[in-house]
């Protein structure tokens, strides 16, 4: 078993781990009670999963074909930059358009500030 074959196996295992993370985040998107808790599942674990998949793809093409794709690196950087921003923007829009919190929530610090404005 030479080096390039074992690195190829590592890349494929990275891709599989990433899809497992994406599947778990989809389960969280179904099971969690309201939009604010769901945004944890949709932003954090889905971003980690897609970063694992894209990094595995980068490693695979680098090892097997000798192509170090700068476009893929740019894609990884862009997803890493924009996924938290998108989750933040959605949560902000949800709070400003008066989406209710789940009944299990115990604390709402933003309510006082919004009432003072």
């Amino acid at each position: 078993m030479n080096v390039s074959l074992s690195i190829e196996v590592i890349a494929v295992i990275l891709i599989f781990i990433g899809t497992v993370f994406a599947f778990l985040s989809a389960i969280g998107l179904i099971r969690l009670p309201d939009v604010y808790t769901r945004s944890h599942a949709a932003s954090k674990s889905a971003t980690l999963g897609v970063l694992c998949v894209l990094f595995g793809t980068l490693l695979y093409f680098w090892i097997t074909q000798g192509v170090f794709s700068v476009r893929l690196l740019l894609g990884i950087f862009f997803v890493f930059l924009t996924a938290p921003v998108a989750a933040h923007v959605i949560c902000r829009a949800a709070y400003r358009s008066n989406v209710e919190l789940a009944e299990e929530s115990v604390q709402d610090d933003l309510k006082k500030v919004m009432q003072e404005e």
Partner: protein
Amino acid sequence: MVELVLMSSLFLLILSILLTLYRVIKGPSMPDRVQALDAIGINLLAGVAIFAVLLRTSAFLEIILLIGILSFIGTVAFARFIERGVVIERKPVD
């Protein structure tokens, strides 16, 4: 062996897209649907990457960047629409 693992990860990805589609259809409020659509865009991006590995071609790598940018712009536009009622604000003309 490599093909088997890649196919099974593609299957998991399609399953997670279907689960997220349930949230798009049922979601009680509008931000729920936008959030689920964003998650579908990210999953689709990973699916294109897996297809590129499966077909052993590096021709699809621009599409990953393109889907990422389009998904982000769509999410931000939807969020602005939900928050303010318009996507592009114009200054009132005197």
